[in-house]
C-alpha cells in the first residue's frame, strides 16, 4: 500500500487541545479538519506523528491512526513543502485571472449617524452616467474570467435600491454574455429600510444575504446607531429582521467596545424573546479606530488580544443559551480579501476604485484608480502597489506561524497601518478556546454520535 512506501513527516500546522471529558481535539490548519480522540490514544497519535516512518503497519490500531492522520493532513509526505505550497496558492489566488470580486457602493448617503462611523460625511449617489461606465468597466474586466462576485455596500445601500436594480440588470446581462458564474450577492445594511417589500426586491435581484448591525439593548444601540435626527432605530430593525429572516438570509453583527460590552446580555435576552436568536447567525466584531473619521475612538476600543478573549466569553454565553454559531476558522489559501487581490475592487459612487472597505469613505487620496479611461496617477499607483506588493510570506513571523493557512497574513489594511507589518487575526489568540467551543456546539447538536 502506498502509505507504507511513502516517507512522512508531521505537518507544521497541527494543534492539539485537551478537553475536560477525557478526550482531546486534533486540528490541522492546512486542511482545516478537526477530529476528536480519546485521551488514551494521545500517546499513540504522538508516536506516529513523531516517528511516522516506523513500521506501524504491523499493528492494526497504529496503522489506522496513521491513515487517519494522513487523511486530515496531520501527516505529510516528507518531501512536501507546506509553506512553498501555500505561497504558491496565495500567488495564484491573488494574481490569477479567474474571478472579478467587487464591492459596490451605490451611494455614500446614510440615514444613520453612528458614533463610531469610519466614513466621512458624504451624500454622493451614483449617477446614470457612472452606472453605465461601471457596467462597461465590468464588461471589459470580465473578458476571459469565470466568475463575478458582488457585494453591496455604502453609505446605506438600501437608500438607493433603484440604482442597485439598474446595475443588477446590467450585471446579469454581462454574466450571461460572458458565461460567468454569478453567485448570489450580499448586502451590508443598517437594516432600517429592510422591510418585507425591500427584502422581496433584494431576493428578486438575487441578493440573498444581508448583514445588519445591532449594538446592544435598545438604549445603548440607539445611542450608538441613531437616525440622523437622533431618533432610535432598535425597534424597527428588530421588527424588520423578524419580518425578513425567512425571505433572505440575515446575519447580525454586534460591534463591541468598552462602551457597550456590558449591554450584550440584555441584547441576547431580547433576541431570544423575539425568536431571532439561533435562527439568525450572530457574530461579534471589534470597533477599530482605523480611519481619520473615527480616530478619536481609540480609547474605547479593545486591543485585538482583549477582543479575542471577550469573543470567547460571549460565544460561551451564546452556547449556554443554546444559540450556537461558533466561529470556525476559514481557509485563506488564496489570499485574504479583495484588498490583496489583483481582480478585486471596492467601487465608490463617483467611480473611484479602492482596495479596502475602510477606505471608500475617506477621500480619493486612498483610491487606486477609477472606472473611466483616466490613467492612474502616481499616488493611486503607490496605493495599489502597497496592497499588491504586500506579502505575508516575506514576514518571518507569518511564514513561521502555525495558523498561516487560515490567516494568510491577516487584514492587509491593518497590516499597512501597523509598525510590525501585520495584525494577527483573533484565532492567533484564541484558537484553542474557539475549537473547544466548536466541539461543544457540535456535541450539543448531536454531531458526535
Amino acid at each position, binding site marked *: 500500500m502506498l502509505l507504507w512506501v511513502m516517507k512522512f513527516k508531521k505537518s507544521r500546522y497541527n494543534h492539539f487541545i485537551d478537553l475536560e471529558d477525557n478526550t482531546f481535539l*486534533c486540528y490541522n490548519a*492546512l*486542511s*482545516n*479538519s*478537526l*477530529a*476528536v*480522540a480519546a485521551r488514551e*490514544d494521545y500517546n499513540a497519535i504522538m508516536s506516529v506523528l513523531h516517528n511516522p516512518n516506523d513500521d506501524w503497519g504491523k499493528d492494526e490500531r497504529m496503522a489506522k491512526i496513521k491513515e*487517519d492522520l494522513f*487523511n*486530515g*493532513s496531520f501527516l505529510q509526505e516528507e518531501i512536501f513543502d507546506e509553506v512553498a505550497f501555500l505561497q504558491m496558492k496565495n500567488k495564484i*489566488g491573488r494574481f490569477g485571472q*479567474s*474571478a472579478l*470580486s467587487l*464591492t459596490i457602493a451605490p451611494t455614500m448617503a446614510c440615514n444613520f449617524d453612528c458614533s463610531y462611523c469610519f466614513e466621512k460625511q458624504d451624500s454622493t449617489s451614483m449617477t446614470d452616467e457612472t452606472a453605465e461606465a461601471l457596467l462597461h468597466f465590468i464588461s471589459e474586466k470580465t473578458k476571459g474570467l*469565470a*466568475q463575478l*462576485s458582488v*457585494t453591496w455596500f455604502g453609505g446605506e445601500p438600501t437608500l438607493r435600491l433603484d440604482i442597485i436594480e439598474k446595475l443588477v440588470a446590467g450585471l446579469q446581462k454581462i454574466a450571461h454574455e460572458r458565461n460567468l*458564474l454569478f*453567485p*448570489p*450577492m*450580499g448586502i451590508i445594511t443598517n437594516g432600517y429600510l429592510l422591510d418585507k417589500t425591500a427584502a422581496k426586491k433584494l431576493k428578486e435581484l438575487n441578493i*440573498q*444575504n444581508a*448583514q445588519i448591525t445591532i449594538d446592544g439593548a435598545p438604549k445603548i444601540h440607539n445611542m450608538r446607531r441613531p437616525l440622523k435626527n437622533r431618533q432610535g432605530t432598535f425597534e424597527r430593525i428588530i421588527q424588520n429582521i423578524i419580518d425578513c429572516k425567512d425571505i433572505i*438570509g440575515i446575519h447580525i453583527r454586534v460591534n463591541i467596545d468598552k462602551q457597550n460590552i456590558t449591554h450584550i446580555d440584555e441584547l441576547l435576552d431580547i433576541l431570544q424573546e423575539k425568536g431571532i436568536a439561533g435562527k439568525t*447567525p450572530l*457574530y461579534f*466584531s471589534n470597533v477599530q479606530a482605523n480611519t481619520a473619521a473615527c480616530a478619536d475612538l481609540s480609547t474605547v476600543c479593545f486591543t485585538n488580544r482583549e477582543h479575542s478573549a471577550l469573543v470567547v466569553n460571549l460565544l460561551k454565553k451564546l452556547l449556554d443559551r443554546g444559540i450556537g454559531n*461558533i*466561529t*470556525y*476558522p*476559514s*481557509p*485563506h*489559501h*488564496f489570499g*485574504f*480579501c*479583495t*484588498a490583496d*487581490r489583483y481582480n*478585486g475592487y471596492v467601487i465608490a459612487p463617483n467611480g473611484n476604485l479602492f482596495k*479596502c*472597505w475602510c477606505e471608500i469613505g475617506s477621500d480619493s487620496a486612498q483610491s487606486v484608480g477609477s472606472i473611466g479611461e483616466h490613467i492612474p496617477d502616481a499616488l493611486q499607483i503607490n496605493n495599489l502597489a502597497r496592497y499588491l506588493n504586500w506579502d505575508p510570506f516575506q514576514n518571518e513571523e507569518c511564514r513561521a506561524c502555525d495558523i498561516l493557512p487560515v490567516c494568510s497574513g491577516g*487584514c492587509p489594511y491593518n497590516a499597512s497601518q501597523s509598525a510590525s507589518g501585520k495584525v494577527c*487575526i*483573533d484565532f492567533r489568540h484564541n484558537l484553542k478556546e474557539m475549537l473547544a467551543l*466548536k*466541539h461543544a456546539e*457540535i456535541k450539543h447538536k448531536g*454531531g*458526535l454520535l
Partner: protein
Amino acid sequence: MKYIIGGLSRAALRDITGGQLDKCAELNKCDIQSCIDFNCIIHTNPCLAYCSQVGCRELACGNYSTTK
C-alpha cells in the same frame, strides 16, 4: 480519532484551480455560493468572523455544508 469537521480533502486541498469547489456549486451542495470559491469576499472582508457565521461549514468535501 473521529473527524467531526472533515476539512479539505487531499484532492480539494491540492486543487489549485478551485475546480473541486466549483463542482460543489454545480451540485448545489451549498446555497451560499460566494463561499464556495475561496475568492469569496463578502464573508471575509471586512470581518473574517462573518464567514463562519453563515453556517456553511462541516461538509467533508471542504468546509461547506448544505445547511445554514
